[in-house]
């Protein structure tokens, strides 16, 4: 009885040992297949994540540049719309103190008003440096608004009251896995109605 039991145990151990080799082979194969799938999945996820992040950053850049441009264009009194180096002039609403307090408006005798002096204007310059759009407000240090920009230009229409801006961003999807279709540059357009009459040309707004 005991010998018989010991004999069956020995047979089972031998059988188990045989299965272990088979299991190792099979499990290694399965593990490799699963690992390969996981790696491919992770790489794909990573690529997708990077592209999505790039897209989100790009979209945020576009919204930011659009909002900055619209902010300055709405209050503009003069434009110098050169390609890749455009300047917007806004009224000298703030005084020259560090606190930048608002000034009292004065009549210009021609039906308009001004802040500070009749010809005073603050220059806000947008220009391309490398692949970045920079904004320089007056004498302040320039700040980077957006990256991966190819070029931009202003186009004033409707007697100078409406300004259309076109900004071309570099391709959002740079991955080698992306199709050529999605790797093209993105053109971003902004249309703004100027609230003030322009000083550099005869125009009314309302």
């Amino acid at each position, binding site marked *: 009885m005991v010998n018989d039991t010991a004999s069956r145990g020995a047979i089972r151990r031998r059988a188990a040992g045989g299965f272990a080799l088979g299991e190792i082979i099979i499990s290694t194969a399965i593990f490799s297949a699963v690992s390969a799938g996981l790696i491919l999945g992770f790489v794909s996820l990573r690529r997708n994540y990077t592209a*999505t992040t790039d897209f989100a950053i790009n979209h945020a850049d576009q*919204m930011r540049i659009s909002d900055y441009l619209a*902010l300055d264009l709405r209050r503009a009194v003069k434009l110098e719309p050169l390609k890749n180096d455009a300047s917007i002039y806004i009224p000298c609403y703030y005084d020259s103190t560090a606190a930048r307090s608002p000034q009292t*408006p004065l*009549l210009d005798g021609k*039906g308009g008003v001004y802040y500070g002096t009749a010809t005073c204007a603050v220059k806000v310059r947008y220009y391309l440096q490398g692949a970045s759009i920079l904004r320089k407000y007056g004498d302040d240090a320039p700040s980077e608004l957006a990256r991966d920009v190819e070029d931009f230009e202003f186009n004033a229409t409707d007697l100078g009251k409406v300004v259309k801006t076109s900004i071309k961003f570099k391709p959002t999807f740079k991955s080698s896995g992306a199709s050529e279709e999605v790797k093209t540059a993105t053109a971003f357009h902004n249309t703004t109605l100027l609230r*003030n009459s322009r000083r550099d040309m005869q125009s009314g707004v309302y």
Partner: protein
Amino acid sequence: MRRLNSDESGSVLIWTVLVITILSLAAAELLHVVSSKYTNALQTAQWQESLLAAESGVDLAIRELRKSLFPPPNKAWEGWSSGQSTEGSIERYGISVIPNAGLAGTEMTINVTVDAPLQLRDASNSWQYYRIRALGTMPITGPPRANDNKQDTRLRKLSLKTDRFTGADLGNSGARVTRRVEAIVRPVSAFDQAVMSLSSLDLNDANIVIDSYDSRDPNKSTNGQYDAAERQKNGHIATNGNLINAGNAYVYGDVSTNSGTATGITNVSGVQRTDFYQEPVPVAAPTWPAINSTPMLVAGNANLAAASTEGSASSRYVLSSITIAGTEVLNLTGNADGSTTYIEVYVTGDISATGNSQIIVHPGVKATIYFAGGVKVSGNGLVNKNNQPGNLLMYGVQPPAGSTTKTVELGGSGHLTAAVYAPDHHVHMNNAGTRGTANGSFVGKTFTMTGTTDLHYDEALGSGGRISNYKIVSWFEDTR
């Protein structure tokens, strides 16, 4: 029965935990990025909405200013509070809360302050410009979290914990975004256009010339008079209606309709616009506290004396009618030396100067004539010896509701120098004779021209006469 080795079961557990951890980290990172971008997009939308709120505040203030131009009771500034500004002028405050105006049904809050600084009073015509400061506020419905991009934070200034204008603590649920706009509005004259009609505007003849000059500017006039060599291109014609027949007239200015069409515009040098509308402000019958009671009507030769003081009782006349014919003359006389004098005449009935009769405005006299009835004046029947249309202003009084529309019929032959504002009258310039000229501005319920009369708009009229509107001349968003 086979029992699993404890090492094997531990390995599976570790692998499971490891995979779950990796997936969880990836999901958390993704959620963080998506949440951050979502918050950014939401705050951007609310930041945009707050500008709409601020600009709505400017519009609300202009609406109240416009209402104040109408005859009483005009209900202007109802619901607004008033006080005194630090600069001493009267200030008006208005707060409007519009429920469900924003994203997710949030309410829009608009705070408006209107004041009239002394620096914004035009000494040349006593016109007061107004300063409008509007704050537009929208609540931030997402988490009160600053953006992860410094430039975004610098651009879109949010009040997350404290109000960025007042410094007040906003608590845990009071995050908001507020934008501030300052606009300066100036009065607009009733004579802002060469010709304006509330409905049809018909010029009929191809030989008409409509242009402008500026009697104040030696570069745009000669000795204060129209000179074709100094011609300007502000002879705008416009209608609140949708049809202008420019009659192939030579219009040196814009042609504007209210979403309509303009025909016969071959010789229009300006722009054809379709976005014109100007709400007509009716003219109320004058209610003077004291008047010169004689005469009570004019029916033949007569003299009405002007006075050196504007608005004096001696130079204010209320007449039931003016009827002159043949060679009869009504003189509006001033000082012998031609110094500036003023006269106001309110005609409750009709004005008729037919044949060779004349109404003469003498040198130095600034005449303002209100008429409730019709007007019929032959060519050369209105003689303005100052040759300045600003010296003869004619206003058509709003008739009682339901009454028949009266007509202002002006003879277009000879020379006419006047400005007519009659939004409740048909205005007809009729010339059956030789080519005539009219210097001034003409506003009517309808405007029709028959025959050939050149119209020269004096741009100086745009800075005088009745105020019919307010328009923005300066706009600035305060981004501190």
